C-alpha cells in the first residue's frame, strides 16, 4: 500500500484514509436519490426525437390510460416558470433552452414529464406519448451547411480579451524553423455513474430539493428565480455526489419541472433520469478544432506562437472555454497571437467538463511542441527546457513554476534517456514501441468561502460548509486540517457538507474547493484558539489544568463556535454576500497580478501491434507540483484518476454524432467507450515538493483537474514515435493507424 499512500515530502500532509470511505463502500452514504421521502410520485422525462423543428401535435391519450399515471406536464403546464439567464459555467442556468416546446432546439430536449405511482408506469406511459413533429434539417457540428460561424466582429471582440504580445506574424515569417498544424478533439460526455436525479418535497411554502450538485447555493438561488419564489423558501441537500466532473455545477431545466410537478400533485416527486437522457439534459465537452503555427530559432527558442481555436456550441448560447488563455502562457514565447471562434449548431448547450479550457488547448499545444521538436531534431524534453521561463510573452510573472523539476523527476523514473529518437526504432517482436511526453497544466483559481467550526470541551469538532466532495477528498482534507489546527485527534472531527442550511462554500469547480474552504477553516480555527488562550489562568476553586475541559470550565462556556469568511486577495468585498446569492467569483490562474498554475509532466509508453494496430499503454508516469499537498493519498488518487481519464480521451472516448440528424449515437456505457481495468497497467504518480505562499493562505494550488491534461498529447506523441503516424484528431482509433 506504500504506493497508494505515498510518503509525504516537504509541504505535504499525511495520507490519512478517506473520511467518507467507509460510508461509501458500505452503502451508508446516502446520495440524493437514496433519501427516502413519503409516498413519492415518480417522474419520467419524455425527450425530443428530432433536433430541430416544432411539435405539431402531442397525443397523450394512450399514455394517460396507463394504470397509475397521475399527470403529464407539457409546455402548456409549465408557462409559469420564469426564464433564467444562461451563464457560461460556474452557476446560473446551464442552457437558455428551458421550455418544453413547441419549438425544438436540440435532440433530446425535454418535451414532457410523466408522473405516476411507480417508475415503471411512468416509463411505460412516457413511451406511449405520441408526438408528431414538423422537422427541419439541423446543423450537427462543424462544417454543417447551416451551422453559424461567428462573424469577424464577434471574433475580434473576444480576441481583445485574449493574450497577444508582439508581432507574431512577422516573427513567424522570419523564423528559422516553422510548423503549421491542425488538431481536433471530439465531443465527450461526463457519464458520471450517478445519473441526473431530483427529488422535490414541498412542506407548505417550503421546498426541499435533493439533487446531486456541485453548488447547492447556486441551485437554490437560480431555482427560486425560475419558480418565482423567495430563495429563503428553498433548501438544497447534496451531501454526496456520485461523480459530476462539471455536469452538476449549474441548474439544468429538470429541477424546476420536478419542483413544479410536486407542487401540482401535492406530493413529493422523484426523478431518476436515464443514461441516454443524460447526454442531452445536461452539458458536455464540445468538440474543438485548432490551428497552431510556431516559429523557432535553430537552438529551439520559440519566437512566434499563433493559436487559433474553433469551438462548437448551441444555437442560442455562446459557451466558450477559450483555452488559448492558458496555451499562450505556458512557455516563454517571443510573440503571441490568439483567436477563438464559436460555431453555433442545433445541439444542447455544452458546459464545464473536467479541466474545460486546458484539455483541448493544451493537447493541441503539446502535440505541436512534439512536432516542432521533431522538426528541430531536438529531444522533446529539451525543447520544453529551452522555452521554460518565469515570464510569459506579455511579461507576466509566475508565482511559482516547477515544470522542469516535474519533467526531470518523471523522465528519471520513466527511463527516458534510453529512448532512441527515430520513429519506429524501438520494437519488441510484432509490437512497435513508442515513448512520448507532454506538459500538464491547470490554472490555480481563487474563490471565497464561509465556514462554521464548533469545538466542545470533550474535544469534538464539527466543521460545516456547503461545499462539495465530488469524490475529490474534501471531507478528508477538511477533517485533517481542522484536527491539525485545533490539536485534536482526527476521529474527533465531523465534517458536514453540501446543504444550503450550512454556510456557503464555493462551487466545486476550477479545483478551488480545498484552497477556498481550507483558507476559511484556518481562519475559524485561529479564532477558536484565540478564545481558548483568552481563558483566565485560574479561577478560584476551579480546575487549573491545561486540559480542554478545564479551559472550557474556566471560560464558563459549553462550546465555542466560530463562523469565518475567506475572501482571496484582490477579491470583491461583497464576495461572500454574492456567494449567499448563488454567485461564485473565481479569480486567479492567468487573471491576477501573477500567473498561478499547478503543473506536471507526463510520460507514456505505447505499444502498437504491427499488424492489427491494437494500441496498449503499458505504463504512464506523471510528476506533478501543486503547492501544498494536503493528503498524499487523496492527491495521488486524483492525479491517477486524471491520467486514466487522459488515456481514455486519447484512445477510447468520444461522443459520436449522427451528422444527418444531429443526434448522439453512442448514448450508453456499452458504446461510449471508457477503459476497463484490464486496459490500464502501470500508473505512477510522483508528487514534486513545491511551496507557493502567494496563491492563498494554505498554499494549495488545487489538482483535481491537473492529471487529465496533456495525457492525450503524450499518447499521440508516443504513437508517432512508435509508428511514424501523426494522429491530429482524437481519439486515436486503431483504424486511423492502418496503411
Amino acid at each position, binding site marked *: 500500500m506504500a504506493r497508494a499512500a505515498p510518503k509525504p515530502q516537504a509541504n505535504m500532509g499525511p495520507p490519512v484514509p478517506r473520511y467518507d470511505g467507509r460510508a461509501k463502500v458500505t452503502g451508508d452514504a446516502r446520495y440524493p436519490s437514496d433519501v427516502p421521502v413519503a409516498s413519492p410520485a415518480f417522474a419520467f422525462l419524455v425527450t425530443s426525437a428530432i433536433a430541430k423543428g416544432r411539435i405539431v401535435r402531442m397525443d397523450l391519450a394512450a399514455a394517460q390510460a396507463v394504470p397509475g399515471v397521475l399527470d403529464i406536464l407539457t409546455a402548456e403546464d409549465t408557462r409559469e416558470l420564469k426564464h433564467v439567464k444562461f451563464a457560461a459555467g460556474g452557476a446560473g442556468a446551464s442552457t437558455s433552452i428551458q421550455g418544453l416546446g413547441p419549438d425544438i432546439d436540440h435532440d433530446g430536449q425535454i418535451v414532457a414529464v410523466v408522473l405516476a405511482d411507480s417508475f415503471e408506469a411512468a416509463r411505460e406511459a412516457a413511451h406511449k406519448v405520441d408526438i408528431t413533429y414538423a422537422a427541419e434539417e439541423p446543423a450537427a457540428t462543424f462544417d454543417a451547411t447551416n451551422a453559424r460561424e461567428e462573424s469577424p466582429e464577434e471574433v475580434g471582440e473576444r480576441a481583445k480579451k485574449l493574450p497577444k504580445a508582439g508581432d507574431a506574424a512577422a516573427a513567424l515569417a522570419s523564423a528559422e524553423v516553422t510548423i503549421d498544424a491542425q488538431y481536433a478533439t471530439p465531443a465527450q460526455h461526463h457519464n458520471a455513474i450517478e445519473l441526473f436525479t431530483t427529488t422535490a418535497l414541498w412542506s407548505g411554502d417550503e421546498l426541499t430539493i435533493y439533487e446531486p450538485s456541485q453548488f447547492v447555493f447556486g441551485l437554490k438561488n437560480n431555482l427560486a428565480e425560475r419558480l418565482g419564489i423567495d430563495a429563503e423558501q428553498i433548501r438544497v441537500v447534496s451531501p454526496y455526489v456520485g461523480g459530476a466532473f462539471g455536469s452538476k455545477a449549474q441548474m439544468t431545466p429538470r429541477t424546476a419541472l420536478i419542483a413544479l410537478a410536486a407542487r401540482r400533485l401535492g406530493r413529493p416527486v422523484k426523478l431518476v433520469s436515464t443514461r441516454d437522457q443524460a447526454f442531452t439534459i445536461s452539458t458536455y465537452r464540445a468538440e474543438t478544432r485548432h490551428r497552431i503555427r510556431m516559429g523557432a530559432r535553430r537552438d529551439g527558442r520559440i519566437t512566434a506562437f499563433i493559436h487559433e481555436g474553433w469551438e462548437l456550441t448551441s444555437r442560442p448560447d455562446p459557451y466558450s472555454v477559450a483555452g488559448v488563455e492558458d496555451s499562450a502562457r505556458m512557455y516563454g514565447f517571443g510573440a503571441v497571437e490568439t483567436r477563438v471562434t464559436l460555431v453555433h449548431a442545433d445541439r444542447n448547450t455544452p458546459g464545464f467538463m473536467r479541466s474545460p479550457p486546458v484539455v483541448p488547448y493544451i493537447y493541441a499545444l503539446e502535440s505541436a511542441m512534439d512536432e516542432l521538436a521533431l522538426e528541430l531534431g531536438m529531444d522533446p524534453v529539451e525543447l520544453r527546457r529551452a522555452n521554460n521561463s518565469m515570464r510569459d510573452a506579455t511579461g507576466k510573472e509566475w508565482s511559482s513554476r516547477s515544470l522542469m523539476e516535474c519533467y526531470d523527476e518523471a523522465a528519471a523514473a520513466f527511463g527516458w534517456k534510453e529512448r532512441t529518437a527515430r520513429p519506429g526504432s524501438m520494437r519488441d517482436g510484432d509490437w512497435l514501441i513508442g515513448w512520448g511526453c507532454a506538459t500538464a497544466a491547470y490554472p490555480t483559481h481563487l474563490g471565497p468561502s464561509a465556514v462554521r467550526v464548533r469545538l466542545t470541551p470533550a474535544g469534538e469538532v464539527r466543521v460545516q460548509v456547503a461545499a462539495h466532495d465530488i469524490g475529490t477528498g474534501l471531507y478528508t482534507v477538511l477533517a485533517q486540517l481542522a484536527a491539525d489546527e485545533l490539536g485534536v485527534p482526527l476521529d474527533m472531527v465531523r465534517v458536514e457538507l453540501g446543504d444550503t442550511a450550512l454556510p456557503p462554500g464555493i462551487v466545486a469547480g476550477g479545483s478551488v474547493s480545498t484552497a477556498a474552504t481550507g483558507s476559511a477553516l484556518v481562519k475559524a480555527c485561529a479564532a477558536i484558539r484565540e478564545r481558548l488562550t483568552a481563558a483566565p489562568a485560574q479561577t478560584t476553586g476551579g480546575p487549573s489544568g491545561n486540559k480542554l475541559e478545564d479551559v472550557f470550565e474556566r471560560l464558563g462556556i459549553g462550546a465555542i463556535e466560530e463562523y469565518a469568511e475567506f475572501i482571496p486577495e484582490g477579491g470583491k468585498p461583497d464576495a461572500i454576500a454574492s456567494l449567499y446569492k448563488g454567485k461564485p467569483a473565481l479569480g486567479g490562474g492567468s487573471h491576477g497580478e501573477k500567473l498561478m498554475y499547478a503543473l506536471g509532466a507526463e510520460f507514456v509508453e505505447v505499444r502498437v501491434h504491427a499488424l*492489427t494496430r491494437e494500441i496498449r499503454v503499458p505504463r504512464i508516469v506523471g510528476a506533478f507540483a501543486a503547492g501544498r499537498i494536503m493528503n498524499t493519498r487523496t492527491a495521488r488518487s486524483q492525479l491517477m484518476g486524471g491520467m486514466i481519464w487522459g488515456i481514455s480521451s486519447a484512445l477510447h472516448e468520444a461522443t459520436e454524432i449522427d451528422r444527418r440528424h444531429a443526434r448522439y449515437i453512442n448514448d450508453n456505457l456499452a458504446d461510449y*467507450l471508457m477503459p476497463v481495468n484490464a486496459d490500464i497497467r502501470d500508473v505512477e504518480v510522483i508528487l514534486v515538493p513545491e511551496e507557493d505562499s502567494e496563491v492563498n493562505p494554505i498554499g494549495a494550488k488545487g489538482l483535481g483537474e491537473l492529471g487529465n491534461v496533456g495525457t492525450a498529447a503524450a499518447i499521440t506523441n508516443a504513437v508517432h514515435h512508435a509508428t511514424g503516424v501523426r494522429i491530429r484528431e482524437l481519439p486515436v*482509433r486503431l*483504424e486511423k493507424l492502418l496503411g
Partner: protein
Amino acid sequence: MAQTEFFRPGNLAAALDLLDQYREQAVIVNGGTDIVERIAHGGVRRAAIIYIHEIPELRGIGEGDGFVRIGGAVTYNDILASPLCCQFTALEQAVKEIGSPSIRVRGTPAGNLGTAVPAGDCCAAMMALDAEVVAASRQGERAIKLADLIIDYRRTALAANELIREIRIPVVPGGKTASAFLRLTSRKGQDIAQASAAVRLTLDGDVCRHAVIAMGSVSKVTVRAYSLEKAVAGKTVADAAEEIKAMVPAEVALRAADNPAFAARPTANIERQYKESVIGVIVARAMMTAYGKILAGEQ
C-alpha cells in the same frame, strides 16, 4: 395492445404449453441480459413474457452419447465452474470474455445462440466446437447444427413454439486436438468484438489434419471459414498461420447491402477495411493458441 402477461413456468412441460399457446406473441426471457433491455425500451412488445431461467430441467450439465450436454438455462458462471465444459478451451475462453461478472452470473450460452447476433462470443466458439442444439416443443424434439440454427441477423431456425432445451458439444479425444477462442476489442473488457475467431485444430504430426474455424463480427451472422479451413489443411501450423495472416476469407461479408447490422453506420467503410485487414491475424493467433495447447499436452 393489451397488457403484457408475465409467466414463470415451474417445469419444461408448462413452458412448452405456454409457448405453444402464445407462439409469435411470446418472448422468451432466459438470462435476460439482452432481451430485457429491448423490452424495457419498447423495442420488443409481446403479449406474453415467458421466463424460463429457473426451470430445473434446463439447469444441468452432463455427459452422454459422446456429448457434453449443457442445459438451456445454464449460465456462463456455471460453465466456468464446470470441468466438463472447460475441457473445451475455446468455450472457456469465449465465456471469460463475455460481459462482466454480473452479466455472467445471469447470462446463458443458449441465450447467446438464440439471440444470434454476429458478435456473440459463444456462437463462434460453439460453431468451431461443432456444437448442436436440441430444440424442444410440445410436438417433440429435434437436433439442429449450429450452422443451420443461425440463419440471419437476430434470426434462428427455431419455430415460434420451440426453445433451446440443451446444447451438445461432441467430445473429441484429446492429445492431438485442441481449441481456442480469441477476439479483438477496442478496450480489454465489457466490449463488443470488432472481430473474433474460434479454432478447433487437429494435428497429424506437425501438420494440420483438420481445422474447424468460425469467425464473429465479420458478417451478419457467425460464419464458418471454410476457405481458411481448406487453405490450412495439410500444412504445418507455422506455415498455415503465416499464410492466413494476410488472407481476407471469402466468408467475410461486410458490404452494407449484405449486412443490416452494418448498413446504417457512418463509419462502415473504415470498419470494413479494418475488419478485413485484421481477421486473418486473429484467426492465425487463435490457431497458434490451440497449437500451443496441443504441444503443452492439454485438451
